[in-house]
Each structure stands twice: as C-alpha cells, then as structure tokens.
C-alpha cells in the first residue's frame, strides 16, 4: 500500500522531533559517527596518497632497449614496430646516441664532451608498459627481438619494488575495510542503544495498531539524520585540513617524484564517501535495531 504524502511528512517531522526529544542520545550517536568518520577520513587520505606515490613510482619504471650497433635505419624501424605491437606496451620513445650523450653530459659534466667525436653509446628505445607490473615480462620478450642488443629494466630491483608497493596497497586496503566495519559496528551499536532505550515507544506504537513500516520509517529517517549530522564535522575538518596541507606541502614537493593528490576532485570524492558512509550506516544501524523490536 502506497504511503500517503501526509504520512510521509509526518514521519519526516517525527524524525526531527525525535532527535530533539532524545537530545542526549542524539548527541551520543552523532559524536560516535563524527569520531569514527574522522578516523576513516584521515586513514583514507593517508592510504590514497600512499597509493598515489606508489602509482607514481610504478609509472617511472621503464625499459631501456639498447639497439644493436649494426642495425641500420630500416632495422630500427622494424624493431620499433615490433615493440609497439608487443602486448602491454603503452609508449615508446626513440633517443639517438647523440641525445643520450647530451643527457649524460648534462648529468655528469662537460668532461664527457670528449666522447662527441667517437660516441660509444647506442641508440635506445625507452618503453613503458601500460601496466607497470608487466614490465619484466615485456622486457624479456623485447630482449628476444633481433637488433635488441640489451634490455635494461632494473631486473631484480623492480620485482622487489612492486612487491613492496603491492604489500603496502593490500595492507592499506585491509585496514580500510577493517576500519569501515569497525565504523559500521560502532555507529550501529550506538544507534541501537538509542533505540533500545525506546523499546517501550515501539511497543506502544504496535499496541495502538501501527504497521511495521509506520514504526520503522521514522527511525530510519532518524538514523539517516544521525549519520548525516555526524558526517558534517569530519567533512569540514578533512576539507580544511587537506586543503591547507596541500597548500603547505605542494610547493615543497615541487620537482620531487612525491606528489599529493590534488585537492579537487579528491576532496569531493572523500566527502561524498564520508557522507554516504554516515548515511548508510545510520540507516542500516537503525534498521537492524528497530527490526528486533518489531519482531518481538
């Protein structure tokens, strides 16, 4: 049976009144939501930025393909084409031995300018994998091609690096999931206590002929408000803190490979997530709590 608009408005009104009537309980629930979501927020900021750093490190990984000295222009083109067609290759860049030498001179000093007469370096391709974790596989495959004299990709080192990064990511993910469930448990428990205290109210509602939905809906709205109210402060704190942290750290990190996630859209996504969590946990906590009394 569809609910009358009047009844819907009544439920909304009741949920607000109830927040006011049970002020202390409201405060307790909102505080629990606030503290927990703040923790979740701080943790997500840390994890997402660590993840960003890990991604950046991974993206820096590239394969250096030294080209055989005997390879003429057409052989180099053939090799280039073969590398492009290799599964998982995202980009390829040709650097001539002259350019390579220039880079070295820039890095190590003019003394190396002596080699300009008789450049000992080879032409190279710098290859990036679309999935950095596949670097080793791709490098090995390229190593088999004709005219690929040598393939350098930090063998042994990048495997370790990826292992560390992956472990870091997995630990972070597990911690976020664990924190999410802790948050769910904490918040729904607090809401349950507020509803348990009102078991008599539910009993009376049932005695005068309230349907299950009539009993349930105001509590669900109430849970929703508790969740939203509890999310407001963490959202504000996270926004202000992250914005200032970004403003403070970003100039210092300029030019480094370490970079924070830019404020937008990250902070919107974070706030959206916190709001959703508050709302979802609030409604869900109310639902399971009120359900027990409805069935009783």
């Amino acid at each position: 049976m569809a609910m009358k608009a009047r009844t819907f408005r009544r439920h909304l009104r009741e949920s607000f009144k109830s927040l006011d009537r049970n002020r202390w309980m409201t405060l307790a629930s909102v505080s629990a939501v606030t503290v927990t979501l703040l923790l979740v927020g701080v943790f997500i900021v840390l994890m997402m930025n660590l993840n960003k750093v890990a991604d950046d490190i991974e993206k820096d990984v590239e394969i250096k393909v030294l080209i055989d000295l005997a390879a003429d222009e057409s052989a180099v083109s053939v090799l280039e084409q073969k590398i492009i067609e290799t599964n998982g290759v995202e980009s390829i860049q040709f650097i001539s031995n002259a350019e390579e030498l220039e880079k070295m001179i820039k890095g190590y000093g003019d003394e190396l300018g002596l080699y300009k007469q008789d450049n000992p370096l080879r032409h190279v391709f710098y290859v990036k994998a679309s999935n950095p974790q596949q670097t080793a596989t791709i490098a090995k495959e390229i190593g088999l091609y004709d005219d690929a004299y040598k393939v350098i990709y930090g063998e042994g080192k990048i495997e370790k690096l990826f292992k560390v990064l992956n472990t870091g990511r997995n630990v972070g993910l597990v911690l976020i999931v664990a924190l999410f469930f802790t948050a769910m448990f904490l918040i729904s428990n607090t809401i349950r206590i507020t509803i348990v205290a009102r078991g008599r109210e539910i009993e009376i509602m049932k005695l005068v002929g309230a349907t299950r939905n009539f009993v349930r809906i105001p509590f669900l709205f109430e849970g929703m408000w508790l969740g939203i109210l509890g999310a407001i402060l963490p959202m504000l704190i996270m926004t202000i803190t992250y914005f200032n942290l970004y403003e403070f750290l970003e100039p210092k990190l300029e030019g480094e490979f370490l970079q924070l996630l830019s404020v937008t859209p990250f902070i919107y996504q974070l706030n959206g997530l916190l709001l959703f969590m508050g709302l979802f946990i609030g409604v869900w906590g109310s639902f399971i709590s009120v359900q027990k009394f409805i069935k009783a």
Partner: protein
Amino acid sequence: MIIMKKVYKKYPNGVVASNGINIEIKRGEFVFVVGPSGAGKSTFIKMMYREEVPTSGDIIIDDINLATLRNSQVPYLRRKVGVVFQDFKLLPKLNVYENIAFALEVIEESPEQIRKKVNDVLGLVGLTHKSRMFPNELSGGEQQRVSIARSIVNTPKVVIADEPTGNLDPAISWEIMEMLERINARGTTIVMATHNKEIVNTMKHRVIAIEGGLITRDEVGGGYGYES
C-alpha cells in the same frame, strides 16, 4: 463479537495457561475476568489483542480469526480493539493531546479529524484543560484517563482492560469504572481483568472466573468469588 473455541495455550517453559477455553462474549457486553494470580487471566486477555497466539483453537473477534491471522494483519486488528493497561503505557515524551492523537496518526486519519476526535475524547474523559501536560505531570488516575481516551479515540468495537485500576486508589478507581461504564453504554464491548473485589461485586456485570487455564465460573451479575 468475541468467540473462543477450544483455546489451548502452552508456553515454551511447559506452563499451560489456557487449557481448552470456550467462551462467547456478545456485542455491547461488559465482562469481568477474575481469578487468582497465575490462573491464566493475563494470557486470556493478551490473546484477545494477539500479543499471545494460541497453541491451538480459534479466537474470533469481529469475524477475524486471530489464530490464523497473519502477522502483517495484526495492526489492523488492534485498530478495532482498544487496550488499557495497569501501567498506562503512555509515551513519556508526548503530551496528553499527542499521546491520544498518536493512535489516530497510526491509522492515517486527516489532521482535521484528529483534532476533532481528540478534542471530543478529551472532553469525555475530562482532561481538556490538561491536554498540553506531559504524563509525568499527571496523577495516576489522570494518566489512566489518557490511556482510556487513547483506547477509544478511534471508536473500537472492543476495549480490553488489563487491571486498569490496579495502580489506583479506591476513589480514583471508581472514577475510572464510571468512565468505562459510560463507554460501554455507547455500545462498546468491554472485557476487563481485575483483582478488585469491590468493583466486581458492586457493578454486577458478567463475571468469568479462570483457574488453572480453565473457565470455572461464568455468571451474569455474579460476584468476585475470591478473598482479595
């Protein structure tokens, strides 16, 4: 109006509170249910508003069989049956008016109807001047009047009262009984469980005595029959 056929109720702990009760209560009757503590009175009363479900047998109120009634239909039964309790069962954070109006909001009555009906019933129980007060600001007798007002505000066909005078002193108890009598005079069936010997003996209504889950006496105009 109310028919019980071979109603048997056994609790999970093995206690048999109703051992095959058969009874018929006609529309407009006023019935006292008496008996010693633990005799099965409360179960008898609770089964009438389906707070308890019989293990076997039929309970029919206004053509609805409570034994086979689906849980989702229970709220609609309760709208036809007003219930009054010894402990009043008022919502402490709602005022008198709101406590009564609540029973009408539940059935999605329009605001105009709610206002009219609540004001009418407040007049009937003599609490118009206290409509904005909260339960803890009222005496026991006044709280019971609010509870009665709530039970009759949507004009149920039956009012079930479980020891409504149990917490009240004698003078106030009589006020409550006069009120129930007036409600009965309007055609509402009243079933009231009580331990109050004086009330039962004075009012001379039908008396159903329950002992050991069985009806041991059913007489019109009977007395209390026990030492209170």
